[in-house]
């Protein structure tokens, strides 16, 4: 087994002069990136009570050197997305009890908003040539230091590789600590299974706060390839960018491919250099695969599946043009099979495996599965099952209940059917409707609110619509408060004031009826 950092360092020893990273138009070699990382590690003093450090960077040197530098300092990293509201970032910083954060000069405006919200003194390590004048005064009680010249000697690796935060139904984000061994198991499997090499150029589309970015960075660096970071401006139209940068290994949410198809940029043979395309994060429609195959005729297409709790992805399905169209259900590509090194079971409510072709909840176990949530024993007990006699019968000490409704077909292929709870995916981002409702309820000062993912297309929610049971209200003020607490993709795109919320037979708010109402208004009934 090789830790995430060792995978990078091994490639850096093998070919220090080769490019590890392309940022905007600039290439950074393995040797240069290693030096930046060790300078970051040298600036993160040892000690402190936290085994974690934050990285506040966005598609910048600070982001990539920050992640590597935190690992080299013997800590796990916590990605902080500078595009999130400051109040949400404060929550993550407090939940992870961060003392050190690596920051980039691109985030000065965010720091000025964020730092006054935090009373506990933080040490901020700025990855830049000089400290920005705009911040030199007025960060007290925090300490801002410029990344030093001194490079660190490697610290023993921490037990945790990283902590990712996902949406929580109680209104607070959930931290998922991922041990080094889990991340190693994933990267090992991917690199060996798909024969990725040092001549490959890997796309980097995911924000660091999305755990699929860990695949982007560390599968690439372990293989010794070049990580080509899609600039923000090219995210709308990345085909041309991928061609210009000679990308051979693609990874994105299916939504990005759908947008490319809609914008007319997915032209036949427009991605002829691709040899492998990975998709993950949400349902992959077969129609998107067909469009992608025409654009990238030389590329294998792999649908990856897995919750953050099971470390990036834990099942895969390789598209076969001869057999796959018939294997799709409801026009959606199967999840495929659980990695041979991991365990999965389609279970009933008691944890007992159901027969093939019977629907159930997907339970997961193995070296990739986390052991629980950060400081949340109750939530951990709900999802990480250790006490079910049935589950324990086959030598597995702990199962993770995904909440995903699946079915295994006669050929042993898993298919996604939906969720057992109120979690939705908005452009690949997992979010709990209950968390959005929690914020909306407070913002609107109304007891009765409901949110739905709408409009939906091929199982993808394009955004959120909020319903408030009130005669009316200050839309601007309500949504401003939502924007102050939620990531942009989770903020309702529209508010509807309604006399009362429709209820279903069980007396619960009927989201189906609310969606039907929006469809009727839209003329889609």
């Amino acid at each position, binding site marked *: 087994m090789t830790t995430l950092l060792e995978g990078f360092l091994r490639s850096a020893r093998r070919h220090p002069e080769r490019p590890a990273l392309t940022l905007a138009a600039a290439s950074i070699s393995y040797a240069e990136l290693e030096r930046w990382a060790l300078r970051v590690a040298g600036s993160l003093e040892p000690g402190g009570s936290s085994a974690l450090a934050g990285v506040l960077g966005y598609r910048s040197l600070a982001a990539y050197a920050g992640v590597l530098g935190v690992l080299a300092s013997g800590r796990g990293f916590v990605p902080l997305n500078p595009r999130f509201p400051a109040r949400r970032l404060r929550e993550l910083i407090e939940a992870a009890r961060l003392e050190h954060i690596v920051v980039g000069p691109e985030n000065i405006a965010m720091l000025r908003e964020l730092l006054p919200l935090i009373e506990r003194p933080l040490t901020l390590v700025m990855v830049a040539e000089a400290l920005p004048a705009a911040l030199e005064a007025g960060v007290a009680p925090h300490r801002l230091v410029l990344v030093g010249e001194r490079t660190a000697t490697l610290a023993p690796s921490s037990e945790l590789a990283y902590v990712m935060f996902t949406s929580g139904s109680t209104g607070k984000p959930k931290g998922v600590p991922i041990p080094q061994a889990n991340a190693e198991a994933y990267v090992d499997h991917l690199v060996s299974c798909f024969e990725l090499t040092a001549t490959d150029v890997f796309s980097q589309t995911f924000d660091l706060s999305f755990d699929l970015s860990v695949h982007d960075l560390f599968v690439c660096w372990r293989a010794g390839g070049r990580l080509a970071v899609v600039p923000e401006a090219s995210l709308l139209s990345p085909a041309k960018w991928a061609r210009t940068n000679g990308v051979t290994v693609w990874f994105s949410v299916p939504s990005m491919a759908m*947008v490319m198809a*809609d*914008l*007319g940029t997915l*032209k036949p043979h427009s991605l002829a250099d691709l040899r492998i395309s990975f998709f993950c994060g949400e349902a992959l429609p077969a129609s998107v695969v067909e469009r992608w195959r025409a654009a990238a005729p030389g590329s294998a297409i792999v649908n990856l599946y897995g919750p953050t709790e099971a470390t990036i992805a834990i099942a895969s399905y390789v598209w076969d043009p001869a057999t796959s169209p018939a294997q799709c259900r409801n026009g959606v590509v199967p999840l495929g099979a659980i990695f041979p090194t991991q365990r999965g079971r389609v279970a009933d409510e008691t944890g007992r495996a159901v027969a093939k072709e019977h629907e159930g909840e997907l339970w997961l176990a193995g070296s990739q599965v986390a052991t629980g949530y950060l400081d949340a024993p109750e939530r951990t007990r709900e999802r990480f099952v250790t006490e079910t006699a049935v589950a324990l019968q086959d030598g597995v000490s702990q199962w993770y209940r995904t909440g995903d409704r699946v079915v295994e077909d006669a050929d042993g292929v898993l298919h996604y059917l939906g969720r057992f709870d109120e979690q939705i995916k908005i452009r690949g981002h997992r979010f709990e409707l209950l968390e959005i409702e929690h914020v909306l309820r407070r913002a609107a000062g109304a007891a009765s609110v409901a949110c739905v993912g709408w409009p939906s297309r091929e199982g993808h929610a394009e955004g959120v619509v909020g319903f408030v049971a009130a005669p009316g209200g200050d839309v601007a*003020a309500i*949504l401003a408060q939502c924007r102050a607490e939620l990531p942009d*993709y989770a903020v309702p795109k529209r508010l509807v004031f309604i006399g009362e919320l429709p209820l279903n037979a069980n007396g619960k708010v009927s989201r189906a009826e609310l969606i039907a109402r929006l469809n009727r208004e839209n003329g889609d009934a």
Partner: protein
Amino acid sequence: MSTADAETIRRRVQTFLSHKLAAQGLVVPPLTDSFAYLEAGVLDSIDFVNLLTELRRDLGVTLELEDLDPTEYATIGGLVACLAR
């Protein structure tokens, strides 16, 4: 080839953006040609698709994204100029 003049396209883009801003409860800034609507986060990728779909359907104008640099259509003025070509 476009079938609408720049002024018609500009008005449609402005209307789309101001509806979007209003639905989000945001103060509508002056929607001048220099307004960088993408950077301002007014539109996400799906909204952008919807805007282009509307312009193609109603005005018969399309944006050839493959031939353009993203900086060319980042502002209202740039977008209108690209569409009116």
